[in-house]
């Protein structure tokens, strides 16, 4: 397990915002002009977003945000490897929000056995369906027991809750693996 936390999810789900809410330094971004007409954004991440939580001295935890489009799924896998955990952010205002979750769970399946995971569903105040219950049921179908909560990543408290849920899982794993 390395000292990193990864934020992933489809485009516009709030990954960069979430990292910005936590990072002790201005996040480094690899945003470029967006040429994909299906995305209502001027820019898009093609490498990764990078932030840092400084603990003390030289100790730090790195924060990574992945690109959101499926064509960059190799970056999801590279970054998630050996992380403390991964936050999958879903934008519930997208018509295919549930299939986005499927996409990430399938793509990261080999890694989710070893890293903590939490699903944060955004924009539920204006777009309550699919419900949090429905997302939880879909997780169960995939064979996973991860927390699913509704969040607004513009609120630091919500982002902190996501991270605490990751830490809880990671700590439990370390304690249960002790001989």
């Amino acid at each position, binding site marked *: 397990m390395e*000292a990193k936390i990864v934020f992933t999810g489809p485009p516009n789900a709030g990954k960069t915002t979430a990292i910005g809410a936590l990072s002790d330094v201005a996040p480094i971004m690899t945003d470029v002009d967006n040429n994909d007409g299906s995305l209502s954004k001027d820019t898009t991440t093609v490498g990764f977003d990078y932030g840092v*939580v400084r603990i003390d001295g030289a100790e730090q935890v790195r924060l990574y945000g992945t690109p959101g489009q499926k064509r960059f799924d190799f970056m999801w896998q590279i970054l998630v490897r050996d992380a403390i955990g991964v936050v999958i952010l879903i934008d519930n205002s997208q018509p295919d929000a549930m299939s986005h979750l499927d996409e990430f769970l399938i793509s990261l399946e080999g890694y989710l056995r070893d890293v903590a995971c939490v699903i944060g569903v955004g924009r539920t105040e204006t777009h309550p369906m699919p419900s949090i219950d429905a997302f939880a*049921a879909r997780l*169960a179908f995939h064979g996973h*027991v991860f927390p699913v909560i509704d969040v607004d990543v513009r609120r630091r408290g919500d982002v902190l809750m996501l991270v*605490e849920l990751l830490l809880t*899982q990671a700590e439990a794993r370390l304690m*249960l693996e002790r001989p």
Partner: protein
Amino acid sequence: MSTMRLQPVGLTEADVTRLEVFLRFIGKRARWQWVLVRDGAADLLICAAGARRSVPSDPASEVAVLSGPGQPPQHALDRDIALPSNLDLETFQELLTKVEARMAIAAASTVAAPSPPMPVVQAVPQRSAIATLEGRFRLIRWPGAELLRSHPKAVRLLGFIAREAISMDRLETLSGLDRAACTEIVQQLLRRDLLAWHATASAPPSMRLASKQAPATEGARSRTTAPGELSAGLLTRLRMKLGFS
């Protein structure tokens, strides 16, 4: 790992060979192993452009249709997946991903309720499980944000029972919470049907034997952490830095 069957229909031998080569590279997926079959039942049929009509519609199979040179694919059903005639590895990989996602969605829609990750060993009336709290408990679904926010201490306990079935005694030790707090949280989870209950207070003999047989290196892994690797201490310091209890 389950097996998924892919059957070519009306394809040339060259196209079939290409599929075989693709499957050698990417047939082994995260959840399924794809194999090519020549007949019998199949999960995915890949049809040549003119062969679609020869395939009876079968809701259990997905159908992909290759276009003819310079022609759009002649698919009979809206559900069919159109493929370019010069199918490349990337498109083939996307096809498998799409079919796997459809299979996952179709299976989820027939599931009445989430299945617990481990079977309940013995059914016990809810009331006696709540009353005695004997046996071991495992989380089958995390509670929602409302309970998490109203019971911040519950979060630490949940991490353990999300990974394995744990008795109340052990849960008290692991979580650092007193018995009363553990009891209240577990009872809340039971009332919400979020826990699977296991009658035995300790792990079955087969599981104990498996843990004894674990290779010696398993223990060594937890003794020291290499530079850059994570330790429980770092997680604790991160917890404190972020202001968690």
